[in-house]
């Protein structure tokens, strides 16, 4: 005995169009009322009591395809006319030819040498400064063990800091030239290096006016400068 399988209602017109999309090619999208099809599809399914989610999904998918077809047709209708707009070309004048006029410049040898003195003063300050960024040197086997080296530096830094504290009571900012006023050249250089360590630690702030050889020192927590440090930080 063979059971006769009944074809689902939605394979019949008008709903079959939602399940046979290949037929859409031959039908105008405007002839399909999507809203009616979907509403009646739901009503029929409720009436039969057979809820088929797969069929519902396919119906929604097909509807959206038909909707897209309609939208594309609408957009086509709204496209602007293809004839280019008539824009009057603007007159572009040719480039002006530039007359050349030689102009004697006012700089003389006198001016060149006038500024040389300033530069040479600056040279003295910078040749005293070691050409290194003020960071701690890497440990080396030739150097004494790092902790001893550091202890000595710390010691010198402590001494210099005390001196600066004393000087700051007399005047602020402290002039570096005053700090090293009575020292030998080598000692002055050493003091400068220790000062850089203090600056790196944040105990002092240093600044220097462009083209002047004087370095100004302020202690951390003392009166701050609103001018940025130049050359040395």
């Amino acid at each position: 005995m063979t059971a006769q399988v009944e074809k689902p209602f939605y394979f019949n017109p008008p709903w079959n169009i939602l399940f046979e999309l290949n037929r859409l090619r031959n039908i105008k999208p405007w002839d399909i009322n999507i809203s009616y099809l979907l509403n009646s599809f739901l009503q029929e399914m409720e009436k039969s009591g057979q809820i088929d989610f797969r069929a519902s999904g396919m119906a929604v998918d097909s509807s959206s395809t038909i909707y897209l077809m309609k939208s594309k047709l609408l957009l086509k209708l709204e496209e602007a006319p293809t004839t280019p707009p008539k824009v009057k070309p603007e007159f572009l004048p040719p480039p002006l030819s530039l007359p050349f006029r030689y102009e004697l410049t006012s700089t003389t040898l006198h001016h060149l040498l006038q500024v040389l003195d300033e530069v040479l003063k600056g040279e003295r300050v910078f040749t005293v400064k070691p050409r290194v960024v003020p960071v701690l040197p890497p440990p080396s086997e030739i150097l004494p063990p790092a902790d001893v080296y550091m202890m000595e530096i710390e010691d010198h830094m402590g001494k210099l800091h005390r001196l600066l504290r004393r000087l700051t009571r007399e005047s602020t900012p402290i002039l570096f030239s005053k700090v090293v006023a009575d020292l030998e050249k080598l000692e002055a250089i050493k003091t400068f290096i220790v000062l850089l360590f203090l600056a790196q630690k944040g105990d002092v702030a240093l600044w220097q006016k462009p083209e002047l050889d004087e370095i100004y020192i302020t202690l951390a927590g003392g009166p701050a400068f609103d001018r940025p440090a130049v050359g040395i930080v």
Partner: protein
Amino acid sequence: MTVRRSELSEPRNSAARQDLVLLEAALYVAGRPLNLKTLASVIKTRSKNKTRKLAKELVEEYRNRDSALEILELEDDRFVLQLKGEYTPRVRKLALRPLLSVGPLRTLSYIAYRQPIPQSHVIDVRGHHAYPHLKQLEDLGLITREKTGRTKVIRTTEFFADYFSLSHDLRAMKQQLKGIFESFMKFEPSETSEKEE
């Protein structure tokens, strides 16, 4: 006034000849138009008439020489010594300070002809590469950009008028420019297509 050629190349050994040469020196050194007052001060006279007469004589002398240089009399009794325009393309590379290239010169032409003109309009017509042109032209003192509301209005400066020996009066200047452009297009149509740098 025309000076006979035989006079020109012959040292006159006179005070007038000396003054003429001093005016030439002044114009060479200045590299910009000088007015009668300045020229008069160089030859230590108060007479504008005397200075004008000498300067005109110098203009004529240069006109009669077959030279790369020219002295022009501008409006308002001002005089300038410069290279004749036709020689610039051949020797521009020798100038120490770079001269304006064709691109910025086109932008300048357009501004001069359409001024006062909103910056946005210049950019529409000349394209976005005109922004650096405007900066360059402004740096050279040839244009000003004045902010009005949300845009900038561009004009050429008095220095521009002097540089190109044009009138300071806007209407007159545009007429002069029209004449220059027309003669330029008539005789040198190929040069207008020179590649922009």
